């Protein structure tokens, strides 16, 4: 009924036109019981008798439908409009997009539901606006700049991250992830998983509370603590560049339990094989995962001679001197630019091995040893290494129990080194004399932009004066960036600098 009416109105531009017999007859056939629009009173209902009907048809043929003064062409939807509506309605079953004209495509995309299955949309739709709507629909806060400015990438990355986050081994079906793989393989470049759930044994963590806690009681403990094996997933993601993992439960709060944060050897071996196979990986982070020396060695061994790796972050773990030694070995066997071993248990020997590697390294830009315990021995070794190193720009030695001897050596380094731009010596016991020596070293340095000496027992005066020098250095650096033509070599704001004088 509706359709016939629509077609009749479409076919007759004005309703005042004399409707033909065919139109009436079709209306009769399709809507024998439904009310007819503007049906005259003297016409009997069409359900009486056929003979009567045929007689009346002749009369109806000449009937004129009264003009509707409010009718206008604007109220009639265009056929294209209807088609687009239909396409939108049936997009899930019959996705038609590429065949449409660009403006129609836009229309369809702007009306598509963000809840369509990914299997339909993933490889078909590239429109950023659609994916933006999808993202906004799912997450209230989206930081698109962190995903290369691509909403689609953001969507898939976060979607995948979510799935991995809530994946419970031996309970969740791994096919859930692997099915998604062909859809997102070309969009996902970064995986930031800040929690990996252990298999359910006891009443699960609050995040997995909705899952049933049956079936895992009687199992032995050893295999049950293994986390999700990322090997298949990572192997499928052909563009993966950044992998950020935490083998632990986030926001456990008062439900804290030690075995929620177990990074087993099996996990470790699996992860090592995974990152070794992933040749596109540039950034690898494994934080807060209780990685001890042996595990760190396993991982780092798999990363030796990795073709693409640039950044390694193993902060907030339990890495000791042996792990640090492995990292030092890695420094000389890869193109690592950033190494972060913050909040570990590296002591003097580890720092010494790192310093030894650093002495002749030409790749590493940033080294972070915050909250370790390298003490003066390690600090002095590092300072010696920095006298020959021409590459490192950032060094974080905060909270390392350093004291005056290290500061003395560092001040010597400061007067010689021209690449360092940032040094953090906060939370150490540098002392008043150390501060003065650092000030002396700073007076000859023109490149250092930051020197953090907070809470390190340095006299305020020297701290202030150092601040002045840093200010001047910053100013100079700004000058260099503003008019690089005055210098022999172009200078990048944070990059290594060569003395122009």
């Amino acid at each position: 009924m509706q359709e016939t009416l629509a077609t009749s109105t479409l076919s007759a531009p004005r309703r005042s036109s004399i409707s033909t017999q065919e139109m009436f007859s079709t209306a009769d056939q399709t809507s024998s019981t439904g009310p007819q629009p503007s049906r005259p009173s003297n016409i009997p209902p069409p359900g009486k008798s056929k003979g009567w009907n045929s007689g009346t048809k002749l009369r109806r043929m000449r009937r004129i439908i009264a003009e509707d003064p409010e009718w206008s062409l604007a109220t009639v939807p265009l056929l294209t409009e209807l088609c687009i509506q239909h396409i939108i309605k049936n997009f899930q079953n019959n996705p038609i997009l590429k065949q449409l004209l660009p403006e129609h495509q836009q229309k369809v995309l702007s009306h598509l539901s963000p809840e369509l299955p990914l299997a339909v949309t993933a490889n078909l739709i590239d429109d950023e606006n659609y994916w933006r709507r999808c993202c906004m629909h799912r997450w209230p806060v989206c930081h698109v700049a962190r995903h290369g400015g691509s909403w689609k990438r953001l969507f898939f990355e976060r979607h995948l991250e979510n799935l991995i986050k809530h994946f419970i081994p031996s309970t969740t079906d791994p096919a859930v992830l692997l099915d998604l793989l062909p859809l997102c393989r070309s969009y996902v470049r970064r995986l930031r998983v800040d929690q990996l759930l252990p298999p359910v044994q006891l009443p699960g963590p609050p995040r997995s509370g909705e899952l049933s806690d049956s079936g895992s009681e009687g199992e032995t403990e050893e295999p049950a603590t293994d986390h999700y094996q990322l090997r298949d997933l990572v192997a499928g993601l052909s563009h993966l560049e950044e992998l950020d993992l935490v083998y632990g439960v986030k926001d456990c709060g008062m439900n804290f339990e030690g075995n929620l944060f177990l990074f087993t050897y099996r996990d470790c071996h699996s992860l090592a094989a995974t990152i070794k196979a992933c040749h596109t990986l540039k950034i690898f982070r494994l934080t807060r995962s209780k990685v001890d020396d042996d595990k760190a060695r396993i991982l780092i061994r798999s990363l030796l001679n990795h073709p693409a790796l640039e950044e390694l972050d193993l902060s907030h773990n339990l890495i000791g001197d042996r792990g640090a030694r492995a990292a030092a070995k890695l420094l000389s066997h890869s193109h690592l630019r950033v190494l972060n071993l913050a909040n570990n248990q590296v002591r003097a020997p580890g720092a010494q091995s790192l310093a030894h590697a650093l002495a002749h390294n030409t790749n590493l830009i940033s080294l972070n040893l915050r909250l370790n315990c390298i003490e003066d021995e390690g600090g002095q070794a590092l300072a010696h290494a920095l006298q020959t190193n021409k590459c490192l720009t950032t060094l974080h030695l905060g909270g390392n129990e350093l004291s005056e001897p290290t500061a003395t050596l560092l001040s010597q380094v400061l007067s010689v080194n021209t690449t360092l731009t940032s040094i953090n010596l906060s939370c150490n016991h540098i002392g008043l004399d150390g501060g003065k020596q650092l000030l002396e070293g700073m007076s000859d340095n023109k490149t250092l932009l930051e020197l953090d000496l907070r809470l390190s027992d340095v006299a305020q005066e020297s701290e202030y004066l150092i601040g002045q020098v840093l200010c001047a250095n910053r100013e100079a650096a700004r000058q260099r960036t503003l008019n690089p033509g005055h210098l022999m070599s172009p200078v990048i704001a944070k990059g290594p600098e060569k003395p122009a004088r």
Partner: protein
Amino acid sequence: MNPPGALGVLEEKEEEHLSTPILGPSIHSDNPQERIQARRLRIAARLEARRREALGEYLDGKKESEEDQSKSYKQKEESRLKLAKLLLCGTELVTNIQVATDIREIHRRVEEQEIKRQRLEKLENEVKTSQDKFDEITAKWEECKQKRIPQDLWDMLNTQQMHCAGLIEDKNKLISELQQELKIKDDQYVKDLKKQSDDICLLLERMEEQVKHVMKTFRQELNYIEKAFEVERRELLTSNKKKWEQALQAHNAKELEYLMNRIKKVEDYEKQLNRQRIWDWEEYNMIKIKLEQDVQVLEQQLQQMKATYQLNQEKLEYNFQVLKKRDEESTVIKSQQKRKINRLHDTLNNLRSKYAKQIKQFQEENQSLTSDYKRLVTQFKELQKSMRHFALIDDKQFREIWLMNEEEAKDLISRAFDVDRIIHTHHLGLPWTAPDFWFLRNVGPISQQPQKSATQILEEVLMQAEEEETEEAASEAESYLDLPKQISPKTTRKILMLLCDESGFLIENKLLSLLLPLEKNECYLLRLDAIFSALGIESEDDLYKLVNFFLKYRVYHSPSSQEQTSLLSVLEPGKQPDLEGQKEESLVEGEPEEKEAPPSSRLIHPNDVLKILEAFVMGLKKPSLILTQRAKLLIENNSLEQQNTELQMLLQKYLDSKINSELQVPPTRVFRAPTK
């Protein structure tokens, strides 16, 4: 929390405002003096800053050096420094939390280490003491075995039990202590969590505050900078205006100078112009006079030319008139001629129509006459038929009557004879002889001309030939009813003529000489008569027989012609040329051969040898005769030709005569028409 990164970003933002490089007393400046100054300042600042408020001094020094800089630049620099400081302080403020937690963590670790060490020590001590106790107990077990007195043994066991209980109690105590510690740790964990959340809250707060503050200051500084720019712009505008006015004044002065120069120059030029004009005027006059003279000369020439032109024109006009007149005359003549032609054409047409009419008329007449003629011929034929019929009937009647009368007469005669005999015998006694009269034996009428003699027929034929040929043919056909129809009278005549020509040897020479002066027909007739008499043909039947023979001969001759020739050559060698001559003739009936047949079939018998010989002699003579005849004919022909030409000449003369042209229907046409 990476302060340099954030700073860098913010600095970049800030640097967007700066478009010009700092020209202040920086050590990187191009100006060496400035560099020296900057270094000096820096050293001074470094030296003095230890005891004084360095910031103000530093900025003062900077300001001093920047006096020559523009206000906006100063403002910018000021704002930049201020903002940089703000950012630095802000980030420091924010990162202070982190640093604080770090140091706290370090302290905690130190404490933890200490506690841990103590705990381990304690545990070790405990292990040692308990081991001692245990050793003691195990030693006592040996003692127990040696005990023989149950009382002692019991006591010993009791003490052992007590010792063991003490050991277990110690252990339990230790466990409870550790559990206590664990509980305290749990509490601390909760506290730490709280502290952490507090820290995070504080961090967030500070960050937000900083963001707000930074935004505010940035906005403020932006305003300041804008204001400074505006002020500078205004100043610049005023100074520029001033400059502009000065320049304008200078320009005006120069303009005046230029104007004066111009006026002077104009005067100069005017003078020059006047001079030039006068000189030009004179020259112009001279040229004008010269040209006027030229013009006069040319006008004279023109007049002459005009006169000649007029003359020529008149001449031409006269000629034209004459030609026109002539033309008119010619047109008149032409029209006359045309009219005449038309008239003549009309007459010609009239005559033509008349002529056509006449032709028609004559044709009709001719037709009617021919039809009349035919009708008459048929009538005549019928008449002849009836006449013949009647003649036959008459003849029959006559014969019957004659026979009747003859019988009567014979009866009478016989009676008379009887009477006479009686008389003779009886009366006279004389023997009676019956008189032999021819008429007694005669039966039928005595015809004077019982049959047409051959000569008569010949005569008739020849006479007919002399008359009209067509009529002759008809009459001939009538006359020779018995003859086969195919033989036309013409042929018959020709046959006869030939016969007469060829069989001249049958005619005696005397007769021939006698016949010479006679007319042709008569001559032929006589000759034929002589020939027929010689051949023994007397009656009409004989003639027919002859004709039939000729015809039969033709039929029978054609196959046996070969045999005949030899015979003919023997019989009549003289006739051979004639025979050939006759063959050339258009008549192919073969009459000439037929003519020879009679001698071959009939005349060859010994009695006639003489005749043949005679004929042979005659035949020899024949060519000369023919030749003479031919010569005569030739002469005749010549004379006739002459006559003809003469007549033609006459006719031509007559036709060419002028009277013909005047006649409406020229006789030439009349001549031609019938010939057509």
